[in-house]
């Protein structure tokens, strides 16, 4: 794809692209730090995550402003239009991923004060999977690699399954030991957040596909089984 005749247009698109890349990097970092804080029971690190999320919020606003300006001034068409529409959506998705990472960090602070359970390891494992997915989808975005994006999109089902098994596990613990209920529900929330981040990642994958191919990816994504509680209670 050649450069635009109006080179300022290219510069603006590049600026937006750079900001999205920065947001992606930051979101990744926030997630990995939050996970680390949970794993290492480090409230200081968790606090850092909460602070750094503000930067992500600000970046989202900047992307919005820049995108609206480019749309108004350049009347983009086709690919450019899709790129800008996707930029708006990806930035807000990344911002939400940041929020979820922040939430994980908050719960990490609570967990660091509670007694240690070996369930945290499963959470961290699920977290690592989610982080990998996020990294890959951001790579797909930078390299316009639809194959990679589709691969990420399909793999989200694994995270769903991890979530389901973790859910069962935590639920079993809580049924066995009612003192675990407080701690367990924190763990459940973290797991839920990670599962949400996984969904957002597939959304980004869909947007990457749309930018490059000009068509929606479709809605027949493989999904995890909805969880039936009745099977557990008896």
């Amino acid at each position, binding site marked *: 794809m050649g*450069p635009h005749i109006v080179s300022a247009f290219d510069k603006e698109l590049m600026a937006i692209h750079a900001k999205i890349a920065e947001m992606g990097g930051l979101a990744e970092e926030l997630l990995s730090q939050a996970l680390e804080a949970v794993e290492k029971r480090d409230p200081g690190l968790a606090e850092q995550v909460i602070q750094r999320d503000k930067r992500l919020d600000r970046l989202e606003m900047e992307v919005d402003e820049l995108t609206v300006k480019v749309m108004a001034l350049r009347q983009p068409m086709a690919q450019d239009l899709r790129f800008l529409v996707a930029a708006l959506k990806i930035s807000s998705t990344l911002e939400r991923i940041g929020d979820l990472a922040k939430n994980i960090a908050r719960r990490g602070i609570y967990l660091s004060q509670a007694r240690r359970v070996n369930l945290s390891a499963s959470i961290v494992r699920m977290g690592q999977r989610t982080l990998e997915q996020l990294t890959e989808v951001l790579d797909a975005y930078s390299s316009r690699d639809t194959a990679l994006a589709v691969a990420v999109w399909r793999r989200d089902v694994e995270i769903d399954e991890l979530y389901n098994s973790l859910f069962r596990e935590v639920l079993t613990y809580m049924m066995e030991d009612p003192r675990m209920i407080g701690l367990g529900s924190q763990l459940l929330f973290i797991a839920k957040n990670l599962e949400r981040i996984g969904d957002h990642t597939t959304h980004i994958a869909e947007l990457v596909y749309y930018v490059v191919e000009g068509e929606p990816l479709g809605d027949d994504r493989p999904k995890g089984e909805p969880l039936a509680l009745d099977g557990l209670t008896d």
Partner: protein
Amino acid sequence: MSVQDTDIPAARPVDWRDPRILARIRRRHARDGWLKAAGLVALLIAFALLAILVGSLVYRGHSAFTQTMVTLQVHVDPKKVKPERLRRGKYDDMVEAALLSHFPEVRSRADRRKLTKILSKGARLALRDRVTADPALIGQTVTISVPVSDPFDQLNKGLIGRSTPEERRIVDDRAIAWFDRLAEKGLISRPFNTALFLEADSRFPELAGLAGAIRGSAYALLVCFLISFPVGIAAAIYLEEFAPRNRFVDIVEVNINNLAAVPSVVFGLLALAVFLGWFGLPRSAPLVGGMTLALMTLPTIIIATRAAVKAVPPSIREAALGIGASETQVVFSHVLPLAMPGILTGTIIGLAQALGETAPLLLIGMNAFITEPPGGVLDPATALPTQIYIWADSPERGFVSRTAAAICVLLLFLVTMNALAVILRRRFERRW
């Protein structure tokens, strides 16, 4: 195009106050001044030349616009004119008698003949016309103003100096004395010379007029217009709108342009050979003159029409074609009306050129001596420029001022026609 093109070093800043730059600017302004001054001088020279030309013509010609007349009491003697033969009366005897009655002391035949030379040969004609118009005057005495002969007309206008030695003068001292006696009696007057416009050519300058030439020119121009205008427009429209682009049409176009540059005398020779030789048309006729002038005017009209048609914006043509007008409809309802101001201007300028053209008319004999204005396009006639040529060639002094006067009249017609062209163009252009 590329984004990285920003490494080019910035241009060295220019010091606009540098004395070399300032000097250069001054030189450039000086050159502007020179150009303007040269143009102005050229204009002044052209204007001065024009002023000298027109001024000298008016100076030399203005006296021809008046005519010295002598007022006489003429007894219309019934013995000398019979009512049944009014045009055969001895009018010169009667007029001469009326003049001689003022000079009873002049008795010898020679002196009396010399005295009557004061009167123009046309004096009797004036009386004849009066009596013919009203036969009841026979036997009565009429007061009539008759022209004096050319030498005395010149004397009265001061064109013959009284201080010139007698032997180098056409009128001697005695004749001057007689003329002065008449003037003292208040019989000499100098009214506007209506004969200049109402009479045709004559051997006597005081009687010669331009009526024949003006009418001859008018007929010739009418013929010229009737031929060259429709033919010229038709040819131009064909060439512009319909002619295919090929070698033949190219040759035709080049030749039309060349035709405009052919010397007019060549057209005269052509007319002599073709119109007079082959077709056997009469010599000196305005019809032939007009046809000859039409040959010359045609290229001018064709070129002007083509330019005017070309200047009609193609958008108008497209608009008409676009709603399904045929080519004829496009030409007649859109192109021609829009081109008309240009066509008319070109036509009038062409006709003005034709009006002033002399050489071809000389060749077809429109420089004959003709004393009657033409009654139609087949009657022999002169034209204004050929009349000027004839008069300029005549030896009598009176024709000098008449030649200048005729040139003034011709110029007046030309100016009028050009003004008409301007007015027409303005009028039509304002309508659209």
